[in-house]
């Protein structure tokens, strides 16, 4: 059994390319990171940066083009269908949109019970029902809601159902794909607190995908920033927010609208918008929008290097530690 601090997931040179009419879309391009058990890695980036594809590729909901995902010591790509199905008990996902990710024709109880039933985890139906009640209690759903349908519930409660369903298998690892972005702020805070409590009580490891930087800062131990399929920076949350190294991270952080009227920071405004991840040139993908662009940036693609202890960045402005 793993204890805290042991590596639960290692992603090595993961690539997912899609063939589209205009060429090859590099949705996830050579992404590598490790994730320790019991911790949360936040993946941030703007629409189209590949963060959702990354989460789904790790779970093999989308097959990768190349690369490795080693989960709990096992290379996931080497598992056959039934081994992978078994492995998915330990790897679950919570989806962004609680309005479209629940089956409208299943009650809350049926929705939560289904994975337990399919896995044959609890064959006795009475005991299974008790487990459903137990899970509803864990995620803060009142028992009276057991026979309701998704359309009768608000967004916050639907997301609680999604969390209960993900927890039904006692997973070690959950990919959370924008779990709170469709919720109102007061409800968003309820769900974030719930997810933190669950992590503390059950030792779950999260990959937390979001575009909301203040949420990711609050929720994650480490943060990885993606830009057009590339992982451009990864560091412990505090280090990333206090001393971002990549110019993109810096601009991203300065763009957060802060609910405060004093001590406001000067903002770095980026030129233009995301370029296309289709057939990218082998140069820095951020160069066109970068305010510190140098000659080398439009000639060579910067590799991800460790510029400070545990602080990785892919930018020509920075050199590896000790060089």
């Amino acid at each position: 059994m793993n204890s805290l601090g042991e590596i639960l997931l290692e992603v090595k040179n993961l690539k997912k390319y899609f063939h589209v009419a205009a060429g090859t879309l590099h949705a996830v391009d050579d992404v590598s990171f490790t994730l320790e058990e019991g911790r949360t890695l936040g993946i941030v980036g703007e629409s189209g940066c590949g963060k959702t594809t990354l989460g789904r590729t790790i779970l093999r909901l989308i097959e990768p083009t190349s690369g490795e995902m080693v989960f709990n010591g096992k290379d996931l790509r080497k598992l056959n269908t039934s081994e992978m199905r078994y492995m998915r008990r330990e790897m679950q996902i919570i989806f962004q949109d609680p309005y479209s990710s629940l089956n409208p024709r299943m009650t809350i109880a049926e929705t939560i019970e289904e994975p337990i039933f399919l896995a044959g985890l609890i064959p006795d139906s009475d005991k299974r029902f008790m487990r459903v009640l137990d899970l509803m209690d864990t995620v803060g759903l009142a028992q009276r809601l057991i026979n309701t349908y998704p359309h009768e519930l608000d967004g916050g409660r639907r997301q609680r159902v999604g969390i209960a369903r993900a927890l039904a298998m006692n997973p070690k690892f959950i990919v959370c794909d924008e779990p709170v972005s469709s919720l109102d702020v007061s409800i968003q805070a309820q769900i974030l607190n719930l997810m933190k409590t669950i992590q503390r009580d059950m030792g779950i490891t999260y990959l937390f995908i979001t575009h909301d930087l203040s949420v990711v800062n609050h929720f994650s131990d480490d943060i990885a920033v993606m830009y057009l399929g590339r992982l451009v920076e990864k560091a412990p949350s505090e280090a990333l927010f206090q001393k971002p190294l990549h110019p993109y991270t810096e601009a991203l952080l300065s763009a957060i609208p802060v609910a405060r009227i004093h001590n406001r920071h000067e903002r770095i405004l980026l030129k233009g918008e995301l370029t296309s991840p289709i057939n990218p040139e082998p140069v820095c993908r951020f160069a066109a929008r970068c305010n510190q662009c140098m000659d080398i940036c439009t000639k060579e693609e910067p590799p991800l290097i460790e510029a400070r202890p545990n602080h990785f960045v892919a930018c020509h402005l920075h050199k590896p530690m000790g060089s």
Partner: protein
Amino acid sequence: MNAQQNTLEIKNLTVEYVVDDEVVHAVTGVNITIPAGKTFGLVGETGAGKTTTALSILNLLPLPAGRIVSGEIFVNGQDVFKLSPKQLRAMRGSQVAMVFQDPMSSLNPIKTVGEQIAEGMKIHRGVSAKEALRQAANMLEMVGIPGGRVSEYPHQFSGGMKQRVIIAIALACNPDILIADEPTTALDVTIQAQVLKLIRELREKSPMIMLMITHALGVVAEVCDFVGIMYAGRIVECGTLADIFDNLRHPYTRGLFDSLPDIENRRAELKPIPGLIPDPMNLPPGCAFHPRCAYAKPECSRDLPQVRWLSDTHYVSCHLYNETVENML
């Protein structure tokens, strides 16, 4: 310019929707006054009545469900509810323009962006088609898109650019009042920063007033002069930006701020508001917030709290302030 130019006054507005014989109390007794050149931020969560308030200004409530029960809205001193359909058409898009939330679905996909910007100028200003198209190119430049792209279609633009096109359409006839319904919610944070900067620059150049509807207090802090906090169809607290951000009084306003992660202190615990927004068909008696309020007293579930003015600019509607104006939170 007469004294009535560029003003918006909403007096005691109450709007209901009748759905399947049940009454939804969408907006109740809302008062908003925006002086010339100022921006008012209307803040609240889903279903608070923000968009209904905005649609009422244009008399655009969905029919037959929507019904103005009482109240008056004065645009530049004219009572909107007394205008004929023809006068309303002349007002919409000309004196009052609206920016809708979703840039993906509020443009016509089979017309060029130039035609869509020019349309209002042809209708309201009687400008020739050629001249309108030329001005449309200028409008595009103003929102930071090369004028040469007037003959392109919406699908050729990214989300942030589509939202700029929508802002250009709204501003084409130089409106006195701009209503922006969550103008940056659908945008990425770096693009949001660009659009907010554009909005701030436009405001500095013109005496136009703006009603900004949003759920994001961070956006309010950037562009608004006044803020109204809406809950279950009523404005529960209203004041200047400083009144609300430095000296808030209503427990719901407190709850909204406490629900936001603190960017400076990532270990600070989130303090969500317990419970859910009430069903607008079945609002709790007394103060609609009392079932979720940590400060609720017996009278809160019985009597509707009265509006209490704390200063010339700041009012709150909460039983905590029946006897005092001291901050009770």
